[in-house]
């Protein structure tokens, strides 16, 4: 059994705000939930499955379900794999729908790290590896810097090539009035920005934003009754990548998640019209492009430097909302917005200058955890209703 065509994304909503000092986290979860359900033409009363990750405050999915008044649930899932959680949720929701466990699944993400500062998850201090890593002062940026350095060493990747990822994102963000950073930047400007953890500069890093997003995944018979175009879930793959005591910083879990998703969808990388690729840092995108199969391993630098990522006419138009690098990175978890922009592209609702003409098949990919240690990857292949 596969999930191909067994579920549709019927609603997608990105919170319009990027700094929300006067609201609570549950309140923003509620706002995005209602936004996505309105987009789908459904209400909270229709929801029979709820999915959330570690950003949801309280006791797994139960506190938020109680807050929202989701009293008809027959399926819950609180898979927590950091930024990739929400891509996994879509795959899990599709599988649950295909198995007849539920018909209308709501997925929410919300948080306020920009207003409230970083929240250090207390659970990570109890991780079995913590004593052997935390005392040496690793930070999020420095872990990705280690990955970038090793990729440069093995494949000759350059800082200018990494900068090309940010340049493309900024070109797209100028058309998004909600984006945090709307001014296009050049490679030279990226390289001239302050060094945070070498070789990564400030402009190699994503933004930190408040906000959130939500998705509604429904059974095909529900989708048929809805007023708006829906997006078909064609394939899903996910995989953790372990450190194993011999961490290899040059590749990601996409080497496993992507083939599973492509196989299930019955398509190949060359069939992808648009790609949402998690961009916590420029190196995150570059490694993912290689591991997803869009170019040969080690050639990601050359691929991005030749303008491949630029919408609407590049070889692989990516992150047309400006992505985490320029638009929005709610709760430091980029997977949700990746799915939302892919849905916009497939509905023909992306910003006009970056809408990919006749966009039929899209990929959304995310990773969670840290490319510098252990991480999780999740890949979705989505298609138009008639795909």
């Amino acid at each position, binding site marked *: 059994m596969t999930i191909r065509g067994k579920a549709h994304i019927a609603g997608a909503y990105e919170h319009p705000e990027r700094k929300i000092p006067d609201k609570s986290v549950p309140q923003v979860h509620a706002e995005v939930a209602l936004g996505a359900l309105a987009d789908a033409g459904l209400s909270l009363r229709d929801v029979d499955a709820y999915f959330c990750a570690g950003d949801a405050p309280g006791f797994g999915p139960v506190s938020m379900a109680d807050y929202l008044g989701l009293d008809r649930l027959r399926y819950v899932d609180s898979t927590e794999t950091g930024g990739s959680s929400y891509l996994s949720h879509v795959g899990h929701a599709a599988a649950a729908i295909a198995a007849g466990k539920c018909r209308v699944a709501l997925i929410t993400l919300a948080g306020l790290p920009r207003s409230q500062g970083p929240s250090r998850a207390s659970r990570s201090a109890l991780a079995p590896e*913590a004593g*052997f*890593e935390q005392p*040496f*002062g690793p930070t999020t940026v420095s872990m990705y810097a*280690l990955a970038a350095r090793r990729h440069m060493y093995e494949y000759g990747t350059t800082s200018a090539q990494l900068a090309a990822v940010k340049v493309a994102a900024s070109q797209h963000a100028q058309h998004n009035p909600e984006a945090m950073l709307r001014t296009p930047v050049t490679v030279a400007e990226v390289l001239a920005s302050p060094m*945070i*953890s070498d070789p990564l500069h400030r402009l190699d890093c994503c933004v930190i934003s408040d906000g959130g997003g939500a998705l509604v995944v429904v059974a095909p018979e529900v989708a048929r009754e809805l007023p708006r175009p829906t997006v078909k879930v064609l394939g899903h793959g996910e995989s953790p990548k372990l450190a194993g*005591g011999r961490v290899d910083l040059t590749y990601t879990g996409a080497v496993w998640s992507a083939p599973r998703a492509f196989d299930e969808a019955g398509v190949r990388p060359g069939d992808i019209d648009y790609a949402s690729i998690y961009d916590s840092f420029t190196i995150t995108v570059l490694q993912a492009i290689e591991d997803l199969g869009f170019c040969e391993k080690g050639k990601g630098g050359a691929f991005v430097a030749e303008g491949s990522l630029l919408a609407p006419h590049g070889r692989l138009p990516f992150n047309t909302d400006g992505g985490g690098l320029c638009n929005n990175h709610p709760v430091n978890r980029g997977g949700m917005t990746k799915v939302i922009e892919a849905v916009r592209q497939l509905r023909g609702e992306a910003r006009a200058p970056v809408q990919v003409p006749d966009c039929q098949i899209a990929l959304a990919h995310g990773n969670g955890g840290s490319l510098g240690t252990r991480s999780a990857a999740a890949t979705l292949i989505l298609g138009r209703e008639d795909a």
Partner: protein
Amino acid sequence: MTDGPESLPAPAPPVTKEFWAATAQGQLLLKRCLDCDSVIWYPRVICPHCSSLRTEWFAASGRGRIYSYTVNHRGEGAYQDCAPFVLAYVELEEGPRIMTNITGAEGDALAVGLPVEVVFSDTGAGSALPRFRPAPG
């Protein structure tokens, strides 16, 4: 470049007592699986390569090479005020790639592949952090 904060963070629980007690004596211990002979990192009771619960400690040579490194200009927590400092993975002669700091090496002296040797930085809490410096010769 700095050698990190003056007061070093001690490893937080769950600690592996034998490992950290040895660091205070200037020794870097590793675990080996008695069934499949794999060298295990980070130390734990189960062999992640073959599921065996039969493991033993042994002393590492303390030598290795830089697998990757970064000069971090934005420390956090205990490292907030001591940037820039070097975070690295060192590949030990015995195989594991371990997270650590490089001390006593400035800019151009740092390189992937550089031979390094272990040094121990006292945490003041009965343990020492195994860090690495360029190996002589």
